[in-house]
């Protein structure tokens, strides 16, 4: 095989790879000068890929790369379920991360709406939040905090790596309006990161989870 037809084959390969849909021979021949035998390029490629994990297949008059059928079958056993989180869940997760340990009531207070039943469950099932002991206040409400899986999911090494209020502000994610300044100056909303004292207090009291 000469250099030229090697280059032609590379081009067909790249075009088919990048294409959003199977391509017909006619369309493919637009990439070449007249006289180039696209059909035989495709056939050669098809042979080359025959034993691979990816095959070049013909669908009617069009061509596309597809996962080899035996592997596709094997892979689909592991079919993954990509879930999207609801807005409420994302917000709740963010609040758990920033305000941990935080009670359900506190989350509701911050969001200004009551939490629907499933929200914390979803986050708990995803393995991102876990009970962090009970608050020593009347009713001894349960508190929530984030887990190691949470850090994994978001590529953080430790909870302390989350951007703080000032940083969210300077990254443009938080309005720098005066009112919020007043808050953060007081330190109220700022970096509610795990403080050793609180940790000890609450981890002392491992008690069963949700009982609601």
């Amino acid at each position, binding site marked *: 095989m000469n250099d030229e037809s090697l280059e032609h084959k590379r081009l067909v390969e790249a075009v088919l790879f*990048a294409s959003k849909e199977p391509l017909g021979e006619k369309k493919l021949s637009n990439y070449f000068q007249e006289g180039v035998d696209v059909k035989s390029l495709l056939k050669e490629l098809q042979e080359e890929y025959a034993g691979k994990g990816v095959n070049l297949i013909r669908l009617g008059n069009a061509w596309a790369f597809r996962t080899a059928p035996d592997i596709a079958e094997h892979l689909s056993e592991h079919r*993954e379920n990509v879930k*999207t*989180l609801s807005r409420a869940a994302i917000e709740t997760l963010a609040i758990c991360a920033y305000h941990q340990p935080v009670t359900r009531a506190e989350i509701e207070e911050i969001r200004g709406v009551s939490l629907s039943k499933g929200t914390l469950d979803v986050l708990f099932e995803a393995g991102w939040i876990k009970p962090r002991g009970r608050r020593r206040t009347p009713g001894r409400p349960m508190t929530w905090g984030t887990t190691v899986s949470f850090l994994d*999911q*978001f590529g953080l090494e430790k909870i302390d790596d989350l951007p703080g209020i000032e940083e969210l502000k300077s990254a443009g994610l*938080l309005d720098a309006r005066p009112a919020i300044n007043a808050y953060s100056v007081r330190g109220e909303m700022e970096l509610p990161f795990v403080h050793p004292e609180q940790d000890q207090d609450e981890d002392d009291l491992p008690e069963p989870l949700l009982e609601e």
Partner: protein
Amino acid sequence: MEKLIDLDQHEDDDLRPKKKSALIIDLEGFEGPLDILLELARDQKVDLIHLSIFHLADQYLNWVAEARRKNLELAADYLVMAAWLAYLKSRLLIPTQSTEEEPSAEEMAAALAFQLQRLEAMRTAGEQLMERSILGKNVFKRGEPESFGKMDDVSYDVTLYDLMKAYGDQMNKHVDQTLHIEATDLYSMDMAIERLRSFLGKIPEWTKLQSFLPKDLKNELHTRSAIASTFAAALEMARDGKVKIRQSETFGAIYIQSPDTELIS
């Protein structure tokens, strides 16, 4: 029609400040004094390593003078730089009178040259980065991806950015609500001074600043304010010679002692 267009352009020309080719007085498009300095340095047409900082200072001062003559409003940054360069120039002119506190004029000039080189390096790096094979422009992903498992049974389509954005939005919403300004619950400086005064003359040993905090601190914020106030109070009293303060290293623990007791012991 054509005439109208001509007229428009003509008017525009009159209104717009005319640009000078080499020494650009138009502030638009410049990002701070360092940027201007870099542009001026290019006028010298030498490698930044061989740059004459003295000459550059002159160029910059001329630029500022010109800008002011044209009544362009210069941000404070530009003026601070001008003042600093004027100072540097005078230091460069007068032969070394080395004082220990301040870096020499040569060191200052070298520091500025370094900053310019560093900025230039990053600017070039950014340009080179953009000239690389860029995904979606020169290099392409699989156009028609197939989806199989990634082995985890469930995965979630949520990024750290999404999370931060949600939190930011949430907090912004808060701001829209009524803001209640609560009465201060911080530990005031007056309280700290009063408390510290009660220990006057009773601190024979060097004692950690923290041990002077009141016992009834309510929460972390309260504690923080107590530390700040007590520290400030200690400084205040040290100034009046009522206590001595010691800190052996930067950010190390701070100790307090009564001054007279040391003489006795």
